């Protein structure tokens, strides 16, 4: 009876039996009784918005996230001036193609805005294990939002009410090929209910730099671009169902503008010919091909270069 | 002749006593016992003969004396140095009245008036030789028995001296191993008769060593006891106790409960003391001689019952004896005339029991040692119960 040895035996048994370091499994015969996954929104994230949490995040973002991010990609940010007339809170709505989107948007915002911005994250992905939940809440200020049922909206409401800006990816998931998918109504709903302005954000290049399945940006410091658009406010009596398409159109127009010029995009928009951000109905490889083309940006010319 | 000799040694006695426990003193070799060559004992008086020891048992009282646990009460009744051994089977070396030389005999160790050559005291005259008043006088130096007297020698030496009155012939068909149990059986007979068990009486025998087993045997054979509860520590003892006639065999921790159950008595649990019964057995026999065993006997005997001390007793709380009006009865050795058996001698009765099947079976548990391995023998005797021996003896027969 050696207590240490017994404790070791217990630990080994538990580690093996419950597959520590792996996903827990359900015995085959018990699968019929697996309850529908409980909305995993129970994870508390309020701590990450306390002063201590904010201080820790500032360090994490400025000392770790930003240097690493900038070492891997190049960015160009346009349209920050739209924020000048606002004093929050706002809902940032962006297209979603990559895990780079969140750091890209956050690091593109002016510091004062960045510090006051929380991110709605998929509860089933970012909050399924405690360590992922703690990590993302600390670094990105995420809170869980169930992408199918919308459970967690109460947290979102609370976060808005506390004066935080919220970044929402209304597609609910990362794009498979870089094109923009259907927008869910959540963000529009909130904007309508609480009368919060929506700032559309379009970005390009993250799909090419780090698509689904990749865990690190590709080599070669790819170019990303971000463009913020004029805030949209729901008209009185406007329903979320009517407002959501407007938001999507705004994002589509920004994408168009980013790829061409403001004037051309404007004109196409006026004519109703803004290219569908969902992309052309062509073979899958051509869609991916188009989206992985390097982002062309007009670099400010070096004064000494001719 | 070669013999084991117990001598006077204050430091050894004190040391053995201090170490405590019967075994500890013996094992560590502090017992004041040595193997020596000494002259054969001769008692130049009529009726005395020489015997050549064949097999001589080690008795609990021997171990008590050697380990210094015996009461100093007995120090006035022995003469040092002496050769121990009072459970003896021997060959007669000299002729004497009625017994030719070469006869096999067992020895009644009690040295009464007849052996000492003095006028019979009142006890001896009545045949109660074990109660003799003359154990310190006469031809011999003091010694309550053969094996405690410097003049007679004892069974643990090659030759000893004995008086005709002590000798009992052994029939040829009884092997030495059985015959060596005659003396203990005689004591057991005496114990059983002293117990005065009533008709259908219930008896508790505390202890299942040689004394307890043989007492059980004698109780079953000679008394009307209906129920005999024997306390046995070891499995082999329990088995033997059943063969000897026990109706119930219990472990030491179970005694009180079992007696209570079988007698329907009430138990009392006093504060700061062990529980006892109001009611219980008619007769309890302490066949161990430990404080624990005597207490058990006292606590489980009904009011007006009898507690028999067989084996040298230890001190105990006598409250129960007072409150329950118990008769405390001593039994020492055996008498030549047992009143309760119609005046027959204990050895005569014992002789009959010894020839029986049960003793023959028990005799298989007799273990012999040569004299020079006496440390081993004593150690074995001290642990006889757990080691499964009924009797450990010195085997002085010539080696084949």
């Amino acid at each position: 009876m050696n207590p240490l040895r017994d404790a070791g035996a217990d630990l080994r048994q538990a580690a093996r039996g419950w597959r520590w370091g792996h996903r827990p499994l359900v015995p085959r015969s018990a699968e019929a009784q697996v309850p529908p996954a409980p909305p995993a929104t129970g994870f508390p994230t309020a701590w990450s918005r306390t002063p201590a949490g904010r201080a820790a995040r500032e360090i994490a973002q400025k000392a770790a996230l930003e240097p690493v991010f900038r070492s891997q990609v190049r960015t160009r940010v346009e349209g920050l001036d739209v924020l000048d007339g606002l004093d929050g809170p706002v809902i940032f709505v962006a297209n979603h193609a990559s895990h780079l989107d969140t750091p890209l948007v956050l690091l593109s915002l002016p510091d004062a805005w960045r510090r006051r911005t929380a991110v709605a994250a998929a509860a089933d992905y970012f909050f399924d294990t405690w360590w992922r939940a703690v990590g993302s809440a600390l670094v990105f200020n995420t809170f869980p939002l169930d992408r199918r049922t919308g459970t967690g909206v109460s947290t979102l409401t609370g976060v808005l009410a506390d004066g935080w800006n919220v970044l929402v990816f209304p597609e609910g998931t990362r794009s498979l090929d870089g094109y923009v998918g259907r927008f869910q109504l959540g963000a529009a709903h909130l904007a309508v209910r609480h009368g919060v302005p929506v700032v559309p954000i379009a970005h390009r290049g993250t799909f090419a730099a780090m698509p689904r399945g990749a865990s690190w940006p590709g080599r070669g410091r790819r170019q990303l671009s971000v463009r913020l658009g004029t805030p949209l406010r729901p008209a009185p009596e406007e329903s979320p169902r009517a407002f959501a398409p407007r938001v999507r159109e705004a994002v589509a127009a920004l994408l168009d503008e980013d790829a061409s010029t403001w004037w051309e995009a404007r004109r196409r928009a006026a004519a109703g010919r803004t290219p569908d951000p969902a992309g052309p109905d062509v073979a899958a490889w051509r869609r991916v091909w188009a989206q992985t083309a390097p982002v062309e940006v007009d670099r400010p010319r070096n004064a000494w270069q001719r | 002749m070669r013999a084991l000799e117990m001598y006077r040694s204050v430091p050894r006695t004190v040391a053995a006593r201090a170490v405590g426990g019967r075994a500890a003193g013996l094992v560590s070799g502090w017992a004041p016992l040595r193997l020596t060559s000494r002259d054969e004992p001769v008692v130049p008086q009529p009726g005395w003969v020489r015997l050549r020891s064949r097999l001589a048992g080690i008795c609990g009282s021997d171990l008590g004396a050697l380990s210094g646990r015996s009461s100093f009460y007995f120090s006035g009744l022995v003469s040092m140095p002496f050769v121990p051994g009072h459970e003896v089977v021997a060959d007669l070396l000299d002729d004497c009245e009625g017994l030719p030389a070469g006869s096999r005999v067992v020895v009644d160790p009690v040295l009464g008036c007849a052996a000492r050559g003095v006028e019979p005291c009142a006890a001896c005259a009545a045949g109660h030789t074990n109660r003799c008043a003359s154990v310190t006088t006469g031809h011999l130096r003091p010694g309550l028995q053969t094996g405690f007297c410097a003049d007679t020698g004892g069974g643990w030496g090659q030759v000893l001296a004995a008086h005709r009155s002590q000798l009992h012939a052994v029939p040829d068909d009884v092997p030495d191993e059985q015959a060596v149990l005659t003396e203990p059986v005689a004591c057991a007979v005496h114990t059983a008769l002293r117990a005065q068990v009533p008709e259908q009486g219930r008896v508790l025998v505390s202890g299942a060593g040689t004394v307890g087993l043989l007492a059980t045997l004698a109780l079953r054979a000679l008394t009307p006891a209906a129920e005999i509860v024997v306390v046995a520590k070891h499995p082999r003892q329990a088995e033997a106790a059943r063969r000897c006639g026990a109706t119930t065999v219990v472990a030491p921790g179970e005694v009180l409960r079992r007696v209570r159950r079988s007698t329907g008595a009430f138990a009392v649990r006093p504060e700061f003391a062990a529980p006892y019964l109001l009611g219980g057995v008619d007769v309890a026999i302490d066949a161990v001689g430990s404080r624990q065993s005597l207490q058990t006997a006292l606590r489980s005997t009904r009011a007006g019952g009898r507690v028999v001390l067989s084996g040298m007793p230890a001190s105990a709380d006598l409250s129960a004896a007072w409150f329950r009006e118990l008769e405390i009865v001593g039994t020492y050795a055996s008498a030549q005339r047992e009143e309760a058996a119609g005046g027959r001698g204990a050895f005569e009765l014992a002789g009959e029991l010894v020839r029986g099947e049960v003793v023959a079976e028990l005799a298989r548990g007799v273990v012999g040692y040569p004299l020079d391995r006496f440390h081993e023998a004593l150690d074995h005797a001290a642990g006889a119960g757990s080691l499964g021996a009924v009797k450990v003896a010195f085997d002085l027969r010539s080696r084949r």
Partner: protein
Amino acid sequence: MSRPGLVLEVDERTPPLVVHDGEGFRLESFPLGTRALYPPESLPALPDLDAAIRDALLHPLDADPLPSKLRPGMRLTIAFDDVSLPLPPMRAPDVRQRVIEAVLTMAADAGVDDVALIAANALHRRMTDAELRHAVGERVFRSFHPQGLLVNHDAEDRANLVHVGVTDRGEDVEINRRAAESDLLVYVNINLVAMDGGHKSVPVGLASYNSLRHHHNAKTMVASHSFMDHEASHLHHSAWRMGRMLAEHLDIFQIETTLNQDIFPSAYEFLQKREWEWSLRDQASMLGLRRGLALAPERLRHKMFHDMRSAYGVTGVNAGAVEPVHERTIAAVHRQQLVEVNGQTDVLVMGVPYLGPYNVDSVMNPILATCMGLGYFFNSYRGSPLVRRGGAVILYHPLQPHFHQVHHPSYVDFYEEVLTESTDPLVIEEKYERQFATDPWYIHLYRTSHAYHGVHPFYMWYWAAHGMDHVGDVIWVGGDRRAAQRLGFRAASSLADALEMASGTVGSDPSITYLHNAPHLLADVR
């Protein structure tokens, strides 16, 4: 929503399963293919218990509302289940307290003066004052106990027993005089398992040895298949006959309550979860508890377990005539505990926990452990036994031959004296039962101390008689070898050894079923 019962088949993905093992538990990796039976998850408790009780009393089944039965000058007796229920004891307030308070409120409103309360402990030990106070509540205790109107039933008090009559099968019906001579007898029950309640309440709980011996005997118990199914249990048939006879003489108002499965308090919560659903925290509490128990001295371990109080929720309250009430009660118990199982098994594995009905605040001695394993758990079936005839039963319990000096005096003697002679219930009954039942000392302790009656260990042994009769081999994992031998069983150091030992009876590749109990479950074997 609580999920129904489950028959798990152990596969490669299954973590080790908890097996209760006296004052502790083990984690056992069962052979692949072992079936493990889990009871349905805890059902939701009644949201407003007091309202439910009032409703049951005002709208009883096949009886007039309780208030209409109460009138000034009447003699009202309230009997209630004793300390053997529920297990573990319920966190205060006990449901008996809630029901009795409701009954007394109505009695006070109706102006009833002559009221007495009796714990229906039959031949069980008397409840201590503290236990009575816990069961009925401080208010009831204070109002009745000092006047001697809140008492334990005394099955040996000749002056306070009445021989009511004899059933058509010649069974004596002898019960508490006060109860029998009341104008109304209200019985407050806790129906923890399917065996309890119905006509087992009054005719058994308030009976004397003279009456109990007609059904508490080896012959009846061997033929009770099982005593968890009152329709198939000879024990219950006898009690039912007695109950029906009593009902002709006595107005009995039965109140039965059923509980859910919230047995383990939060620190031990993992014990009632299914192992593969344990969170890291559950695993950590398990490891911590295992280490704590290994290091804790025996007294502390004993205290940790016996101080456990369950947060049982009440799932139903039914009142009125005994039989319709019991029918509803049994339905509720089945909802909570029934698991459907297909076919019998060669080897049945069961873990005997620290507690059974007869060692509340006491010691689970080897006889009680046997009763728990081969009696209660083995009989947790409906239809046919879980294990096939001649199969093997493997039990987990340390089987230390420790006995509570105050509670179980006759058990020690039974263990030391009777079991050394024989372990056959019929032989034991024939030779010893009478002696133990009439031993004046045991009777004295039963009446004045807190001892189980002298005959009680025999009942425990009869309880296990059906199991012993049915199975071929009984092996205790981790059991004291000598104790197991004394009981007529064998001991093994591990499950693998036990299976090896059983291979002589059931072959080397037997089908194995593990009864994952507690929480309580009842197997419905098809």
